[in-house]
């Protein structure tokens, strides 16, 4: 079964140094390698900051494009994983191990249909 891990975090800009970020990325890469080895890894991504977001919607045929994210909140969606796990307990264990849990909240959601 596939689960999506949605990583909600505060804005790190001005809060952490480049060296800290580099050290952190190393830990994430090591964790990703472990997930690949264990057959849990499907895909991961880090998102651009919310101020780079553009929203589109179509209502009764009329297209509208607006600047900014869908919802303004202090914590925003910063990245995601799609993983393969046998049940929620295994998915939670994988989410728990993410280095990001030290500063972010990870939402674990089952994926009903995964198109590839």
């Amino acid at each position, binding site marked *: 079964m596939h689960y999506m891990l949605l990583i909600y975090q505060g804005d790190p800009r001005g809060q952490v140094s480049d060296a800290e970020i580099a050290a952190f990325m190393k830990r994430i890469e090591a964790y990703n390698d472990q997930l690949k080895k264990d057959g849990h890894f499907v895909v991961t991504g880090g998102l651009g900051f919310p101020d780079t977001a553009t929203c589109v919607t179509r209502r009764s045929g009329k297209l509208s494009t607006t600047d900014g994210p869908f919802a303004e909140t202090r914590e925003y969606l910063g990245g995601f994983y799609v993983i393969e796990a046998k049940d929620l*307990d295994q998915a939670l264990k994988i989410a728990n191990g993410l280095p990001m849990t030290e500063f972010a909240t990870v939402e674990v959601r089952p994926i009903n249909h995964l198109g590839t």
Partner: protein
Amino acid sequence: MSQRTDRDAIEAVYRTESGRVLATLIRLLGSFDLAEEALHDAFMAAADQWPRDGTPANPRAWLVSAGRFKAIDRLRRRARLDAAGDDIAMQIEAAAEPPEDPAAIADDQLRLIFTCCHPALSPDAQVALTLREVCGLTTEEIARAFLTATPTIAQRIVRAKAKIRDARIPYEVPEKDALPDRLDAVLRVVYLVFNEGYAASGGDKFIRADLSAEAIRLGRLLVELLPDAEALGLLALMLLQDSRRNARLSSEGDIVLLADQDRGLWNRGEIDEGITLAARAMRAREIGAYALQAAIAAAHATATTDAATDWRRIVALYDLLMHADPSPIVALNRAVAVAMRDGPAAGLAAIDALMADGTLDDFHLAHSARADLLRRLLRVAEARAAYERAAALAIHPAERRFYDRRRAQLSG
């Protein structure tokens, strides 16, 4: 055999076996809803066949097997409308025959408890689901006990079952590394159910006593299924608290303090069992918070009069509890025990030190404890003000009446 005894026999089997049969059917069928329907069908079949053919030698195995066949049958009939049903029916048929092994059935009950108390479900949902699925209470009974509308409870249970299915919450006893945390969550649900039934007022008194009885039954089941000192400690604590049920309220429904209770009304059977269990829990390598609370309750239960209470031992146990599970409420209880050991002035100093940072300011029991010590120190005006504050903060009418009465009794 008369029809009456037939029905009695089936009802007796229902009371003792339905929980176990349901737990096994959920594992075999992989669905709460399907298992509940199958359980119902199995008992309908029993009511039809047992009076004619006699009660089977192993009613539990018969019911599991009948429930499984009925579920396959149901899915086959549904398959005519929906192709998915047939796949599930084939999967269930292909799976192994239900085991007769008693250990596997005990595991099914544990699986059910751990799934119902899974931290991915909201605390309210954990309680409702445990009472519904493990204890077999009806939705109406749960609603009445919690003073909640039946549709609210029904919706809570439907949502929880949908999350178990859709997010795939496993039907398993947690792995060893996760077990202590997950067991804590289960014990918390059991104690919450007990306290809901033990609270001084609100709701139907008799239904609430049933809730406490269900919590004790769950506690016994856990002790039987898992060798764990905290499960023992919780069962001991519940039994010792429940032993005072008939003494803690007057015939008018007013609160009677521990010191003033008629100890002849305490339930000796529950006390003896509670003391034995508490002692076992205290012999564990790591002594937990429930075991310590049970040991404190046991120290009260063994005192033949209030004056004979061993306050030195009780303060020492609170010291350990402050180490195992520190909280402002434990600190408050410790201060009250200090007052009993060393006198009201020492106790008041301890409570005032605790209340200095304001965390206990909205807690009525802190003000009532202060009021009682001020009363004993003959500081009447301050005692009166403290009782007023306690009454203003009290939640239950019985508590408010108690504080008003104490305040009225102050002389001068």
